[in-house]
């Protein structure tokens, strides 16, 4: 059997930025993968939609927020199931140092939201 390198994900347009209410998220299907896309404080963030603590595809429905740690402000999303929180920029779990969500590149272009390869 030969292993072929997977092609890098092309950028995918998923929706118009107006499809995402400020402060909230939507779920997009990117290359068969569920990606949660958030619009928080004027910026876009994209993480996996799957909550690693429960296995359910729900993170795009989480409440976003902010948290100050070590003087630095970071944006977060809390899973709607059991309220585990994640750093939107890094995917790092705030509850368990050993858990980190995949995060994806995002781009806003002429009012369109684009999702790129995993970071």
């Amino acid at each position, binding site marked *: 059997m030969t292993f072929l390198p*997977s092609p890098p994900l092309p950028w995918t347009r998923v929706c118009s930025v107006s499809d995402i209410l400020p402060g909230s998220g939507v779920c997009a*299907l990117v290359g068969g993968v569920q990606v949660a896309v958030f619009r928080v404080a004027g910026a876009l963030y994209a993480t996996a939609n799957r909550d690693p603590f429960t296995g359910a595809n729900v993170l795009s429905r989480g*409440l976003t927020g902010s*948290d100050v740690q070590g003087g630095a402000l970071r944006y977060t999303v809390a899973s709607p199931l*059991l309220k585990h929180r994640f750093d939107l920029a890094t995917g790092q779990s705030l509850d368990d140092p050993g858990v980190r969500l995949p995060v994806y590149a995002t781009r806003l272009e002429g009012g369109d939201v684009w999702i790129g390869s995993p970071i």
Partner: protein
Amino acid sequence: MFTPSLSAASLPHVVVVGNGMVGHRLVQRLREGAAAQTMRLTVISEEPCLAYDRVQLSRQFDDPRPDLALASPDDYAVLEVAVVWGRAHTLNPAARTVAVGDLTLHYDALVLTTGSVPFVPPLPGRDAAGCFVYRTLADLDAIRAAAHTAHTGVVIGGGLLGLEAAGALRKLGLQTHVVEAAPHLMPAQLDSEGGAALRRTVEAMGLGVHTGRAPQAITTDGAGRVTGLRFADDHLPADLIVFSAGIRPRDDLARAAGLALGERGGVKIDDLGRTSDPHIYAAGECAAHAGRTYGLVAPGYRMAAVVATNLLRDLGLLNTAPALFQGADLSTKLKLLGVEVGSFGDAHGQTPGCRTVSLSDNVRGTYSKLVLAEDGSRVLGGLLVGDTARYSELLDLTLSATPLTAPPETLLVPALPASGALPQADTLVCSCENVRESAVCAAVQGGARDVAGLKRCTGAGTGCGGCVPTLHGLLQTELRRLGQVVTNHLCGHYAHSRQELFDLIRVRGHRTWDEVLAAHGSGHGCEICKPAVASILASLHGELVVSPAHAAVQDTNDAFLANIQKNGTYSVVPRVPGGEITPAGLMAIGAVAQKYGLYCKLTGGQRIDLLGAHRDDLPLIWEDLIAAGFESGHAYGKSLRTVKSCVGSAWCRYGVQDSTGLAVRLELRYRGLRSPHKLKSGVSGCTRECAEARSKDFGLIATEHGWNVYVGGNGGVTPKHALLLAEGLSEDEVVRLLDRYLMFYVRTADRLQRTSAWLEGLDGGLAYLRRVIVDDHLGLCAELEADMARHIASYQDEWAAALADPGVRARFRTFVNAEERDDGVVWVDERGQIRPAELPDILSGLPQLPLHGGD
């Protein structure tokens, strides 16, 4: 009647024989009613001192020795009471004289308060040197003197006085034993369980207890000194023996004078305190009333007061109605050897048909028992050993025959420790992560200052999340214990409590999250403050929670108007007011469930839950339900959920009011009301309480006189029975009161605080709530009612409103860019319906995450 005295002073002369506690009380009462100018008063005292506090006799061995005297010769001189020292030996009722030594006193009225003498069982050797009784100060002086050369003391008699004497011997440093012929200690007051509890405590103090043992003789040495007690098969060595086996009334003077005696001794008296001679009265332990003698001081005092009144009347010195003694309550509370013992009412359960409930704790050394009426409705009496904290309360219940409103066993449960106290047991807080209270407290001591910090340090609250409220409470308690300032801030983004924020939003008139955050918050909010503010806005303004201004701050249930389940699908609960549903309605729900492949379950609140709905099916499901006449049941919100009911007077043979009708009315009235936590209610058509109304935030129970309103109950982790707020109300009165109650709660409760905790936290509790919403003490009621009226007027079905708005409807799509469904939702079959597959099944079905540059 007053007869002119032949004595020199020509004033009526009253002689009191005996100057114990009761005799002294009598002297006081007589002098209060008749001054020295109107009546001569003479007391005959056999003891060489005036009255002292015999109840406290054992304190004579305390160091420093207390002054037990109740009266001094100086006091009596001031009162102009003559004291004759000596023993009265001859009473002549015909001549109205009494002789002391060689002195003969003439009296117009005489009172016998000669008390009692200790009973000494007729044991061989009972007069030996080293044998004592325990009655007077002289007895105690003699015991003290003997104790100097003694090592072991034995008290014969394990009753009240015996234990008192044993305590005294122990104070004197003697190795002490108590011998009681009955099978247990204090047989007159206690039952065998109570006696056993007392015995454990007494033994734990190092005293020997020998019950069910009757000594046969007292053994002595060649010099006639006590060496011990002989039993049939045993010998108990002792250097000192104290008899304390009961008392006998001192009725010898009366007996010799030919006065009538009680069947079991004592000078017979009537209800006026008179003996068989109209000029002679008796009171205290020497008297027998209705064939009964009283060995307690309280009935003696009562008799003294009665005798004083009637005697003064008979002498023409007082013009009042006669006083009556009609027996006394024998309830008593004492401390023996440091052990609290209480006995009240029918402690021995002699009432026919009575039943008992008891609680025995051999670790705390406590025993308590209630004797109840046959139907359990009233307390008839009881016993308390080791802890008499509830004595007065229980005595009150007994004497007033108050019908019980709580299960009787709860009256025996020890009071819970104050909420501020440190928990004793290391309770398991988080069962998911196996975290105990001690670990949480340690984390707080280690610097954790919020629930998120506790989650990080301990892992508690990161599983199912059910313990998060407990964590919050522990955090507050522990911080307070550490002397930290405990804030009631909603979260790190708002330096206000929910109540403060509620008032700010109301007064400032904010209408959106952005306005509230800009004015009062910081950062971008979080999963705690966002739903809280959303709820406050919904309570105040009644705007749609799914409108664009509010949608992004709603937690998922409110955002999608359904309940999220473990696999990300939702359940739908149509409103079924009062649980009343037509066959057509049932069929419509069934048809919807079948069409969308939903799992059906009747809920605990008389509704039908349709589970397993994909997000994009929700609007379609609602369309069908709305077409069949249903609306949102708000099973998702922190809002009124359900008003449960029984069938009431419409169907039930016991029902006295229309519980279903009222439940329907209330559920429709308060539907959609956003509140600090979910609200549940129940309406029962009679006191059989089939709707379990008292476990609800508000509950109604029908009586023949109207509705009883209960508030502040809930099930759940800390179940609480609701408390009675008002009784016998009409339906309209109920509605008005509930409007006020609910609005007051909505306005003032903390975030996620159920009504039970809110009510407990109200300063003044139920009484305060009653003052505010029943008596309108704060003048708030009109405003509260108006707030509720505004809510009711603004109500609209959220499902229908969401369907009507294409923008809202679009949010229900699973993917913003595709028509597929969530392939993570996997069903398995169980008992003929679907249920979510467990995690491993799902994981195996998931596509691998493509990794950048990976292979």
